[in-house]
């Protein structure tokens, strides 16, 4: 009797299909060796919203009875493998389904594995990842977070690379042969993706993480009230209005200290206070009221409250005054305004460094116009990109879509096998 429990921690909507393909792939691979399995989402996570952390699970077991034992719970209380498909989730996850900030490794069993798709190094990831009382393994699957949408799926092979890596982590349940067989079946006989899975399998590195390693911060938490403590009539008290920041200067709204939502953020605004014209647009348009008004009437995006939607950048009338930067470039939620006030030249240097690197400032999700993804593929901008769309992607309903199944140009194959050249490989 044995079983394997995996969770996939992902960004709502952007990675919904990715997470579901991974958990399905786990069950279908395990089925190839006669095992039983279930794939399901953390239902309380839905309705999903852009970027809101969410979870899918896959459980495989030797017998249906043992599977039932594990299905009897709403969600697993501990998992053998935590698969994190966006490295900024290593900062902790706050979802619709629970309260407080959950460390990414919270459910990982002692000596279990956290598998992260990332272009960062282990040391960088450990700046974000909270400390765990027991040792565990950290494995990095080199690559950018694969973001798509509710109705679209980005064929950049992330799902099969995760499955290949998993075959290395848990060979007792998923052999690379079983994984390859399942991928091939799901891909209408093509073995293009099998190659990507095998490459991930061959190259996976494991780093043991000790209890003293990681982010020492205690994540915020919340205790649910008892039924008789709660107000009646499905009502909750509102937050009080805000207060000035210093003396009677500035304004900071009162924010919930138990529901912060910042773990939804994949990008954050970086503000150039020296070029700000105090037009108030960012402050007015922010859907989360995340801007604090400083005594100088500047606007400081509070990182405990910002969801990273990018509206402030879009409405700001001054070029490069607000720039959205990939969240992985930061390791704390410190106030930018405080930093600016303390040492303006140092702040300018910091700001220039953060916004200069177009590789990280480039939008990490979403497309601005139809066909952008195809263009990026053409230009080779996506180092993990799949085959050229015109060649046809093997997959679901290929026949109905009039796509030629299993036909790939040499060029397309080269792009895909170039996966290992991703930073950090």
């Amino acid at each position, binding site marked *: 009797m044995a079983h394997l429990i995996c969770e996939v921690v992902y960004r709502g909507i952007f990675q919904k299909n990715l997470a579901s393909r991974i958990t399905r792939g786990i069950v279908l691979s395990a089925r190839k060796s006669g095992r039983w399995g279930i794939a399901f989402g953390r239902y309380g996570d839905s*309705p999903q919203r852009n970027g809101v952390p969410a979870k899918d699970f896959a459980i495989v077991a030797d017998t249906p009875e043992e599977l039932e034992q594990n299905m009897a719970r709403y969600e697993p209380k501990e998992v053998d493998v935590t698969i994190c498909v966006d490295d900024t989730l290593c900062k902790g996850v706050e979802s619709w389904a629970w309260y407080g900030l959950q460390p990414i490794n919270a459910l990982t069993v002692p000596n279990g594995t956290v598998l992260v798709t990332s272009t960062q190094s282990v040391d960088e990831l450990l700046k974000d990842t909270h400390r765990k009382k027991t040792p565990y393994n950290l494995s990095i699957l080199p690559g950018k977070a694969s973001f798509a949408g509710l109705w679209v799926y980005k064929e950049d092979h992330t799902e099969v690379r995760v499955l290949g890596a998993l075959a290395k982590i848990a060979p007792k349940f998923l052999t690379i042969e079983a994984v390859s067989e399942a991928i091939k079946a799901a891909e*209408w006989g093509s073995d293009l993706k099998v190659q990507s899975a095998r490459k991930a399998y061959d190259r996976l590195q494991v780093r043991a993480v000790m209890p003293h390693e990681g982010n020492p911060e205690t994540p915020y938490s919340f205790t649910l009230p*008892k039924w008789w403590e709660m107000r009646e009539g499905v009502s909750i008290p509102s937050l009080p209005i805000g207060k000035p920041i210093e003396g009677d200067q500035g304004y900071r709204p009162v924010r919930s200290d138990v529901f912060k939502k910042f773990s939804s953020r994949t990008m954050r605004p970086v503000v150039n206070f020296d070029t700000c014209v105090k037009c108030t647009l960012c402050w007015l348009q922010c859907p989360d009221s995340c801007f604090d008004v400083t005594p100088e009437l500047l606007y400081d995006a509070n990182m405990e409250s910002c969801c990273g939607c990018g509206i402030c950048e879009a409405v700001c009338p001054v070029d490069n005054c607000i720039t959205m930067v990939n969240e992985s470039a930061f390791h704390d939620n410190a106030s930018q305004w405080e930093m600016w006030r303390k040492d303006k030249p140092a702040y300018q240097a910091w700001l220039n460094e953060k916004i200069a690197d177009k590789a990280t400032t480039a939008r990490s999700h979403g497309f601005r116009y139809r066909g952008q993804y195809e263009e990026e593929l053409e230009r080779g901008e996506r180092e993990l990109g799949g085959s050229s769309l015109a060649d046809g992607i093997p997959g679901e309903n290929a026949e109905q879509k009039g796509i030629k199944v299993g036909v790939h140009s040499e060029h397309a194959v080269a792009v895909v096998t170039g996966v290992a050249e991703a930073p950090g490989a």
Partner: protein
Amino acid sequence: MTTVAQAPTRAPYQVEQELLISGSEAIAEALTLADIDVVTAYPIRPYDTVMQAVAKKVANGLLDAEYIVAEGEHSQFEIVKHASAVGARVFCGSSGVGWMYAMEPITVTPALRIPMVAMVGNRALDDPGAFGVEHNDALSVRDLGWLLTWVDTAQEALDTTLIAYRVAEDRRIFLPIAISCDGAFLTHSQTICKVPTKAQVEAFLPPYNRADLLLHPDNPITVAPQVNEDWVMEIRQQNNEATNRAYGVIEEAYRDFRRIFGRDLHNPWFEEYMTDDNPDVILMGMGTLSMPVKVTVRKLRAEGKKVGFIRLKWFRPFPYERLAQALGKAKAIGVIDRDYSFGSPFGSGVVANEVRAALYNSEKRPPLIGFIFGLGGREVTIENVTKAVELCEHAARTGKTDKGTYWLGVRE
């Protein structure tokens, strides 16, 4: 070098397939096999997963059906009601307050003897806005002439959908059937499921024949004229008789299902789990709570406790005679409700009081405790099921209950 593969030849449903699908997708497989004619949709979680799965079947050319997105649940149920009257095999469904919004067409459907099959993705009724499972949505129609069944697994959802059409469209019945599926636990969980062949389904499910009730120019009839007090009781009596006939028709359908599909669904009415040795305590409930309960039963059996479980499958018609017989074997009964019925006898849930009534005329009437569990999708934990068994054991020893109902799993 990449191999060039041939696209598989499309020959759907010619051989039995094994698919990894959710309860909702399993229903869509059954609907495709049943070759439904009209389906109406209006999104609400968790029912919307069925709607999406059916849309995909239509889009992929596997199902030739009119797929109508209504502007609300009321219209959704009205449209299929009319389509069924003109001879179409129909499907629709909803969840929680969506189902309640359709209440007017839902109410008139049984009297018109419309064999509509609907899926209810069980969901807590607002407020508070929540989407976890609670059975009050489907139970709200328990007195109206709908046949109601609860399923537990994706496989059972698929099988029961086929059975539902067979029963509903039987000329002796012509009543709507709602298939209740626990939100999340069943609708959103993917498990391995066997999908039968088209030939098997054709052998099991004859075409829908509305016969003399067909609304058609060649068969001029008026449906639902206004009446006075001279007519209503007789019409109700017709519905009552049809519902009573369902006991026999359901048994028949399960017998044929077993013969044609080779899957033994045992007793059509309820599943008995470890009840053969006249256990001290029998727990009872509907839907997916069976999983934690069965796991607990196995655990307690290993500790030497005589505990069993009965999972009720059909709530309407309610198998009161067979159930009274099966429950009479125990020294105490615990009925787990995933619903509430405020101000009811003993403050119990709906199922517990139905069981109390079913036992009233029995010679063997063990003490019965009602339990309210897992409302709004809260996890039914093994700890709480164990607690329920302990309370029932106490009742088994003393022959009486201290309290009619316990709420377990509430923060207090």
